[in-house]
C-alpha cells in the first residue's frame, strides 16, 4: 500500500476522535509497552496523557540516551535562493510577499559555506524556494559539488523532485533530504497552498519515498505544527515515518517538529501548540519510533531548546540565518521565518556541554572521496 492510501484511511475524524477518547488506562498501558503500536501512539498523543508527561519524558530520555548516547548533532541551513512561485499563505518567501529576492551563484554559495565551515560545522542543509527555472536540480547540484569538500554531510530542503533528480543530487554529493508535508490534511493543504506547483499534495507526499529510492542516506519528514490540530498531524507524521522505515530499512528516517513562528505577512497559525503540547508530541514520537532521529530547529527559543534536548532530540541547527547570503554579510532582514535562537555555534555548544551533552559535528564520511583521505599522524 502506498502511504497516500494509508493516509486516506488514517487521517479521518474517527482517528481524531479515537485519540481524543483514549483513557488513562490506555496511556499507562502504552507507557509500559516495549514496542508501542498505533493504538499506544494514539494514547500517548491523547489529552489523557497530559498528566503523565513526566513519565513520558523519562522514558523518552532513557530511550534516546540508549540509542543515541549523550550526543547532539549540529547542522546549519544555507539558504541558496528565496525566489518562489508558490503562494503558501504561512511563508515569508511566498510569491505574493514583496521582499527582496536573491539567489546565490554557486561561487557565492561556496563563500557562504566557507564562512559556515569556519565555525566548525560539518553538516549543511541547502534550501531554496520553489523556482525550478532559476534554482532547479542542475543549480542545486552545482552548489552541492562545490560545497561537498567542506561538508561530509549535505542535505537538501527544496521543492518536491522526481526520483531521477534526487538521484542526480546524490551523485553531486547530497546524502540527506528533508521534506515537510506541512499538513497531512488534504483539504486544509489545498486552502493553504492556493497557487503554484506545490498545490499537488500527492506529489509532495510521495517525495520522501522517491528520495529513499534514489539512495539518500537520511530522509527527514515533518508537519508544520500549528496549521492543523496537532494530535492527528503528529500521528500521521509518525505513521509516515514508520511506513518509510519499513519500506526502506536502509535509510535513516528522521522527524522534525517545526512549530509555526510569526513571519512577514499577516497570516498567523490557527492551531498553535503550547510548550507542553510540543513536549507531548516529541516524547510520544520517541516512544513510538525509538531509532528515529528527531530534529529541532532554531524556531524555538534558547531556553526551551536547551530544555528539550534531553527529551528525544538528536539533531539541532545552530548559527542560523534564514536570509539568502546571511553568513557573509548579506541583508539578514527578509528571512523565511524569524528565528528565536540567534546563538552562534560556540554558544549552542557551550549550552549543550553544560547539560552533559556532546555536540557532534561530523557523522558521515563521504565514500566518493576515499582517495583524498589523509593520515592522522
Amino acid at each position, binding site marked *: 500500500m502506498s502511504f497516500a492510501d494509508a493516509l486516506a484511511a488514517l487521517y479521518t475524524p474517527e482517528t481524531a476522535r479515537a485519540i481524543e477518547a483514549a483513557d488513562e488506562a490506555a496511556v499507562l498501558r502504552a507507557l509500559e509497552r516495549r514496542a508501542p503500536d498505533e493504538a499506544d501512539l494514539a494514547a500517548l498523543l491523547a489529552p489523557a496523557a497530559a498528566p503523565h508527561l513526566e513519565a513520558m519524558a523519562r522514558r523518552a530520555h532513557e530511550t534516546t*540516551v*540508549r*540509542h*543515541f*548516547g*549523550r*550526543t547532539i548533532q549540529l547542522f546549519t541551513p544555507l539558504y541558496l535562493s528565496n525566489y518562489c512561485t508558490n503562494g503558501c499563505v504561512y511563508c515569508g518567501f511566498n510569491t505574493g510577499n514583496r521582499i527582496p529576492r536573491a539567489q546565490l551563484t554557486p561561487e557565492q554559495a561556496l563563500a557562504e559555506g566557507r564562512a559556515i565551515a569556519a565555525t*566548525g560545522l*560539518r553538516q549543511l542543509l541547502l534550501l531554496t524556494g520553489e523556482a525550478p527555472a532559476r534554482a532547479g536540480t542542475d543549480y542545486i547540484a552545482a552548489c552541492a559539488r562545490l560545497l561537498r569538500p567542506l561538508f*561530509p554531510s549535505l542535505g537538501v530542503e527544496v521543492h518536491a523532485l522526481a526520483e531521477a533528480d534526487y538521484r542526480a543530487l546524490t551523485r553531486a554529493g547530497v546524502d540527506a533530504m528533508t521534506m515537510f508535508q506541512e499538513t497531512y490534511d488534504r483539504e486544509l493543504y489545498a486552502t493553504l497552498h492556493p497557487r503554484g506547483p506545490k498545490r499537488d499534495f500527492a506529489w509532495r507526499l510521495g517525495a520522501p519515498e522517491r528520495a529513499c529510492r534514489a539512495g539518500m*542516506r537520511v530522509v527527514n519528514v515533518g508537519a508544520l505544527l500549528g496549521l492543523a490540530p496537532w494530535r492527528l498531524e503528529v500521528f500521521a507524521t509518525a505513521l509516515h515515518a514508520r511506513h518509510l*522505515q*519499513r519500506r526502506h*530499512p*536502509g*535509510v*535513516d*528516517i528522521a522527524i522534525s517538529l517545526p512549530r509555526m513562528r510569526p513571519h512577514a505577512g499577516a497570516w498567523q497559525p490557527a492551531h498553535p501548540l503550547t510548550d507542553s503540547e510540543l513536549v507531548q508530541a516529541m516524547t510520544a514520537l520517541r516512544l513510538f519510533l525509538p*531509532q528515529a532521529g528527531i530534529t529541532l530547529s532554531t524556531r524555538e527559543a534558547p531556553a526551551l531548546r536547551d530544555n528539550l534536548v534531553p527529551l528525544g532530540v538528536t539533531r539541532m541547527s545552530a548559527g542560523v540565518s534564514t536570509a539568502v547570503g546571511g553568513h557573509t554579510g548579506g541583508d539578514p532582514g527578509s528571512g523565511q521565518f524569524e528565528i528565536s535562537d540567534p546563538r552562534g555555534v560556540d554558544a549552542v555548544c557551550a549550552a549543550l*556541554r553544560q547539560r*552533559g*551533552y*556532546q555536540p*557532534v*559535528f*561530523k*557523522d*558521515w*564520511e563521504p*565514500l566518493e572521496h*576515499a582517495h583524498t*583521505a*589523509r*593520515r*592522522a*599522524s
Partner: protein
Amino acid sequence: MTPVTEHDDILELGGARLHSRLFIGTGKFGDDALIPAVCAASGAQVITMALRRVDLDAGPANLMAHIPAHMVRLPNTSGARNADEAVRIARLARAMGCGDWIKIEVVSDSRHLLPDGYATARATETLAREGFVVLPYMNPDLYVARSLADAGAAAVMPLGAPIGTNRGLRTREMIAILVEELDLPVIVDAGIGKPSQACEAMEMGAAACLVNTAIATAGDPVAMGRAFGQAVAAGRAAFLAGPGAERRRASASSPLTGFLGEAGAGAGGAVPGEAQP
C-alpha cells in the same frame, strides 16, 4: 600441560597480546574528554570508534586526540549499508592511519540495527585478503560464523541483544553454541547493559566483551568502566576455574571415573575381562 591461571591468561589477537578482555567504545559519551579516564579505569586495551565520526580537520576536538597512545584502535564501519561501503570505509580507516584492525558493521535496518550476515561475510573475505585484522559484528548464527571463519575473520562478535538496548544476553544459547563450535575467539558485542551480564558472558567462555553504551551513558562513566573491567576479569577467572577449564587440565587429581578398573571397586567387584582373585 599446566593449569592456565589468570596471570598468564593472554588473548592473542591480530598480533596483539591482550591482558584485558574488555573492549570499549567511543560513541555516546557526553564528553569525549572522559575517554582517557575510562580507558585507565577499565583497563581496556582495545577501543572502537566510528570512522564516520572521525574528523581530522577538527584539531584538538578530533575524537582520535582523546584516545591514549597505548590503546589498540579498532575503527568500525558504522553507517555501512552493504559490503562495498564497509570495504571502502575500512580502506579509508587504514589510509587515515587508524591501523589494520577493523570491526565490520553492515547494517541496513534502521529500525532494529541488526547486522547483515551475508554482506558481512563478503566484506570480511575482501578485507582479510588485504591484510586487515577483521572483527565482524554478527547475529550469533553458527552458519554465518563458519562463513566468517572461512573468510578469514580474526574473531567473531555476536550480539547479546540488539544494539543500544542494554537488554543483556538474550542470545545466550546461540552464543554458547558459537563458543563450543568455533576455533576463533568469540567476543560478545552489543546488548550488555550491566557488569553482571558481561561477567556471565565471560563465564560462558566468551573470549572478550565489547561494551560501549552501558559505560558511555552511565551516570559516572569512569566508575562504570572500572566496574566492567572487574566484572570481565571475574567472569574470565570463573571460566578458567570452573568446568570450562576441565578440558585443559590433563593432570586433574581425582577423576570421577578413576574407580573404574580399580580392584575391588564395587559390590559386584568384577571388571569384565579381568581374572578373579
